[in-house]
């Protein structure tokens, strides 16, 4: 259940999600937060078991903070995605998989990035990505509206349309849209 989308833009990244939590055929919550900020430069959109996702994010948050304190500069988005994927993979190998599919999106000195990480422990870098039961519908919208030369403002519009379309036809998604845009301040300072 759920629809989440992540879009990489010229000036940052945008995450979007619906707000429905399903309990079988029952709507368990209509105001669930599926986008979690890890810090000012990176955030995760959650599809799947919320408790598993919360745990992984909690560990990733702590690890990111520790590494930044120890080495003096933060983990890149790719390093963070790999860390999260490793946690997921260790779960899979122990026959207790974390039932999640996460979109890890953020900005670092290399630019903006969107990674898709699932319970298998694989990560793929994408220009845009979607996950959850509504993702086939969301992908239809993303495929037709996305291009590489968009701004965060335009991506917010596309993300919200993609999630809205999914909410129209996917019974697992609904009850409103959450959006988060992370601007790439690092790039702005340099330019």
């Amino acid at each position: 259940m759920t629809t989440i989308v992540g879009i990489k833009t010229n000036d940052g990244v945008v995450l979007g999600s619906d707000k429905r939590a399903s309990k079988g055929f029952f709507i368990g919550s209509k105001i669930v937060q599926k986008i979690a900020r890890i810090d000012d430069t990176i955030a995760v959109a959650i599809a799947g078991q919320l408790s598993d996702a919360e745990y992984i994010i909690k560990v990733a948050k702590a690890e990111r903070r520790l590494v930044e304190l120890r080495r003096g500069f933060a983990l890149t988005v790719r390093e963070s995605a790999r860390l999260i994927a490793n946690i997921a993979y260790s779960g899979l190998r122990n026959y207790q998989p974390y039932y999640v599919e996460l979109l890890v999106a953020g900005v670092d000195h290399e630019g903006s990035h969107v990674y898709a990480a699932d319970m298998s422990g694989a990560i793929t870098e994408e220009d845009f990505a979607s996950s959850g039961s509504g993702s086939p519908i969301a992908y239809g919208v993303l495929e037709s509206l996305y291009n590489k030369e968009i701004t965060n403002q335009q991506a917010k519009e596309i993300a919200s349309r993609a999630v809205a379309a999914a909410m129209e036809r996917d019974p697992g998604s609904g009850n409103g849209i959450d959006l988060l845009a992370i601007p790439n301040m690092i790039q702005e300072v340099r330019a």
Partner: protein
Amino acid sequence: MSESSPNFSNRFPFYGPQGRLVLVDSALEAVSRGSTTIGIKTPKFAIISSQIKPTHPLIEPSEKIFSIDFHAGATGSGYIGDILQLIDALRLEAQRHRLTYETSIDIDSLAKHLSTFLHNYTTYAVRPQAASMILAGADQTGIQLYQVDPSGTFFRGSGFAIGQSSEIALDVMTKEYRTDMTQEEAIELGEKAIEKALGEKPIVETGVVTQNSFRKLPLEKTWSITPY
């Protein structure tokens, strides 16, 4: 706790009467008899050089400059067995970081890991490692050079000397160091510093760190009849 017996001889000697860690002091003493070893850093590159002690015409001397990963190298002074052990700990940590984050480890984290590793040997009834290490590498923060001592103390800097007569070597380097040195000048300065410290022309092994790689320089095999 409040035992006030001034007799230290029956107990395991962690602290001496002066409040110093005698085992660590002994390790440092061993290092000060090791081969003279230096590191020099400029904003563009770093070099590490170590004296190779000639052994016997039939015996190949031990390697002294070690690659830790593509972007980092290390050398040391003290007992070679201890040095090798520490090199392995560094290599392991570098690869562990690659597995966890899929990127090359930064030199500060390497130095801190080595520091923690060495510090462990100062807190239990074991022999501290008789080796000081010099690490050089390139990471997101630029070229980095570190010295790590048996106590776990570590320093970041532009020039280090450890081993036999290291004060003399460091003196030479301090006087002639320039940030705009070329690689050749730095290697020459390193050799000169080691030569001054030993009072004779040494055989020196050298490694160089540039923007993104560490490499060992080929050694002219002047010391032996290569037996193979």
